[in-house]
């Protein structure tokens, strides 16, 4: 199979298939072109069939049998030259001459084009054309793979896609790599069902094809050894869904330890400015309680009583800001009522005697994956508070160099915890993490069905974007020329990507995660 260079137009090299090529090269494929002492790798951006001898409609009307020669089709592809291997020293760039012959790239050439990454999560390079997704193969039919760069973890990642498109499976795959290969720690928030609650056990694939993919990559399914599920003490994890009870631990929020800023997670539908008053009110109460009560009656319920009593003080509260400055603030009646309402829901999460509170010491453990299950009743409020609290602890611990363990934070449905229009102040430590991830070795993977759910303040610091089956037009901004139809018909596991420091890669397929995916059970559930 060969493709012959026609020429360049608008920065793209056009090629046409020769006689030996009997099909359309799908978008996302790679071609290698050798010319004198130079070699070029081209990535297919557009691909179409061209009929050299299309029939006159009259012939069709006459119902005449076609000549096979008149049905001949050629494949015309438009490609980007993504990598040149040449040895010029005069500062110029080689021409790619018309009629040069290109062939399918092999693994070695694609590795070179992708920077010869020896480490990193391995994925299949894939193609997408019309409604078909295929794994890329070389001329001998061997699957082509690529390593995603490990540093992408610390430049923040967004995973988007519809339900069932593969985003959770991809998150699991990346999390397991982080734990096992980077020897890092993972903190994940499970927001629904048992998405992230079975990662202690190997995946059970439904098809042989998945097993073949693993075999091709030299992988075996296995669970994560050091894996724990934390859940709010006032809720239950449904063990009927086959979650291992032995690795589950109840946790609570400790009013003595809680970082005041974390309470912002409780508040919805009030302005950022209004919300920012609560931490200062709480901080004042917390500090006073530490001194006055010395542990006695130092509970969240007492704080609620204190807060509700504000109605008698004309909604005026004493405050203490992070710099230790005391002041007074008068809340708007609406803000007061909103906060009071949310306190009622949150009270159950605090100060449970049969549970302990966790902090960064529980999370920042090398090779450990910690999942906080907030899928239960009012779990979002719990998740909002504990996530903020843990992020604060982690940022502090990292800043003070108390821990050198890399950490990956997996936040599914981030809009449930952070308002999409959240200000930098409201984003708090999450914003800090995203901006200092590289130096502190902290990575965040945001997972969502909709790109618009991501807080706007964060979108500029997310450097890796992975779009599974989706109807999101923003995916087009990744530099892949995909039709809406093609985006919507991506098969499970296939994704359009823009990877940090690996812009050459556009279409990939994640292998099935090695742990926590039971496809057999899913099939039974559907039945």
């Amino acid at each position: 199979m060969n493709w012959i260079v026609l020429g360049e137009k608008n920065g793209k090299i056009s090629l046409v298939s020769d006689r030996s090529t009997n099909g359309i090269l799908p978008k996302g494929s790679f071609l290698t072109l050798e010319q004198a002492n130079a070699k070029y790798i081209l990535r297919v951006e557009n691909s179409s069939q061209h009929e050299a001898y299309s029939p006159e409609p009259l012939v069709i009307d006459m119902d005449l049998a076609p000549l096979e020669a008149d049905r001949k089709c050629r494949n015309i592809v438009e490609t980007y030259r993504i990598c040149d291997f040449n040895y010029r020293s005069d500062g110029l760039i080689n021409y790619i001459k018309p009629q040069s012959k290109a062939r399918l790239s092999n693994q070695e050439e694609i590795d070179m084009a992708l920077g010869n990454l020896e480490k990193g999560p391995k994925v299949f390079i894939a193609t997408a054309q019309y409604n078909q997704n295929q794994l890329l193969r070389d001329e001998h039919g061997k699957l082509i793979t690529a390593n995603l760069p490990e540093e992408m973890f610390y430049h923040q990642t967004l995973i988007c896609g519809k339900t069932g498109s593969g985003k959770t499976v991809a998150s699991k795959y990346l999390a397991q790599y982080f734990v096992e290969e980077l020897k890092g720690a993972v903190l994940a928030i499970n927001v629904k069902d048992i998405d992230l609650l079975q990662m202690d056990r190997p995946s059970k694939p439904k098809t042989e094809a998945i097993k073949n993919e693993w075999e091709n990559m030299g992988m075996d399914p296995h669970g994560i050894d050091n894996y724990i599920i934390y859940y709010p003490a006032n809720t239950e994890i449904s063990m009927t869904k086959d979650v291992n009870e032995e690795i589950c631990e109840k946790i609570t929020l400790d009013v003595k330890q809680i970082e005041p800023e974390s309470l912002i997670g409780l508040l919805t539908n009030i302005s950022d400015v209004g919300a920012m008053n609560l931490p200062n009110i709480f901080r004042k109460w917390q500090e006073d309680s530490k001194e006055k009560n010395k542990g006695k009656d130092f509970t969240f319920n007492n704080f609620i009583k204190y807060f509700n009593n504000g109605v008698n003080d004309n909604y005026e509260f004493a405050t203490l800001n992070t710099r230790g400055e005391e002041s007074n603030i008068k809340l708007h009646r609406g803000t007061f009522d909103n906060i009071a309402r949310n306190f009622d829901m949150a009270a159950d999460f605090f100060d449970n005697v049969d549970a302990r509170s966790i902090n960064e010491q529980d999370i920042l453990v090398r090779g450990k994956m910690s999942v906080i299950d907030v899928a239960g009743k009012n779990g979002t409020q719990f998740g909002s508070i504990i996530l903020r609290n843990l992020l604060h602890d982690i940022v502090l611990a990292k800043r003070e160099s108390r821990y050198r363990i890399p950490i990956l934070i997996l936040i599914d449905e981030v809009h449930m915890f952070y308002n999409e229009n959240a200000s930098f102040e409201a984003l708090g430590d999450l914003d800090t993490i995203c901006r200092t991830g590289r130096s502190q070795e902290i990575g965040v993977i945001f997972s969502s069905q909709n790109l618009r759910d991501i807080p706007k303040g964060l979108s500029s610091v997310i450097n890796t974007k992975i779009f599974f089956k989706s109807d999101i037009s923003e995916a087009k901004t990744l530099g892949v020329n995909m039709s809406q139809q093609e985006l919507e018909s991506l098969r499970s596991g296939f994704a359009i990507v823009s990877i940090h420091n690996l812009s050459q890669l556009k279409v990939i397929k994640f292998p099935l995660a090695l742990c926590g995916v039971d496809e057999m059970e899913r099939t039974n559930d559907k039945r």
Partner: protein
Amino acid sequence: MKKNFKLFSKRENNMILEDNSFNFGFNKLIIDSKFNDILDELKNINISLPTVNSNFKQDLNDITFSKNGKLTHDDNGINSFNLNPENGTKFIEKKPIIAYDESINRFDSLEGTAFFASHSLALLSSTDYIPANYLTFYFYTKSKAIVNRSKYIKYAENPEVQSKIDYTKDKIKFINNTVIKNSILLIDGPLIAGDAYTYFINPIIKMTERNIIPVFFVKNSLSDIVISSIESLKDKYNSDLHWAFKLLKNGQRSNFFHYTDAVNPKNSKVFCYIKVFNSSPQRIEFHSETFKKYNQIIPDILDMIYYQILVQGDDNNPQVRLIAIAEKYARATLKLINIDKILKKVGITPTLNQKRFGW
């Protein structure tokens, strides 16, 4: 000493070959062996004078019938016949069909005239159209001083006539060495035209002996031999094509006419007119020997031609698809060698004026 200019220096698969062995065949582009030599000589002679803008134009279609010729028609008189495209498609499977066309570029300079010709054959195989091409290059001059200093630049009193003769010889060489036996050869242009055709008649007769059936196509002709030879048609039409257009409906052909040159009986042919779309008909010509030998299958061949014109479409320029493809390859191969660039390299581009024309 100036370094010789070498345009084609190596074999690259079947795409470009030097013509040392004259190894013609399909799926090949043959470059004439003199191509590089002529370029070298032009460079060495250092032609660098301003150009003369030559408005060369010649329509050979108007001189395809001699005044000494005699025209007869079938006993059944002037008639029209329906063509059957379905029969034409079936016939395609019975014999190999090949088409010939050419593309020629002419450059005029004060020192002489350059002709680049691409001869093209296209074979209709069971699955594909397979080309064969032959590129030639000639430079003609009336300057004996230039000719005396060169080996390949040709002296010519009349470059047009000489180029046509050389072109015809090359065409014959190419066809004879490429076209396979027992095939049908569709050639764009008249069987008899101008002086150079005399080089062509004998090879055409020999082709018939090799069971090759050459068929010629004439468009845009102003000939009037039919309307001037048949009493009932006299003074009613502007040309034979005008008459044929009125006589024929879409999808019809006329009866056959037999033309013989009284002076040279070898110059005889049989022809009819064919009308596919509601536009100008075409004249289809056979040499008399060919017609005599294959008259049983000539109607099938005409059905096949009808299908080929139908499938190509384009009622503004009705053309047999296979010939259209041969023409495309001819133009593409001329483009392939990038004449402008070649002439620039040998130092004569600014001095030459290019003009494309066809015989």
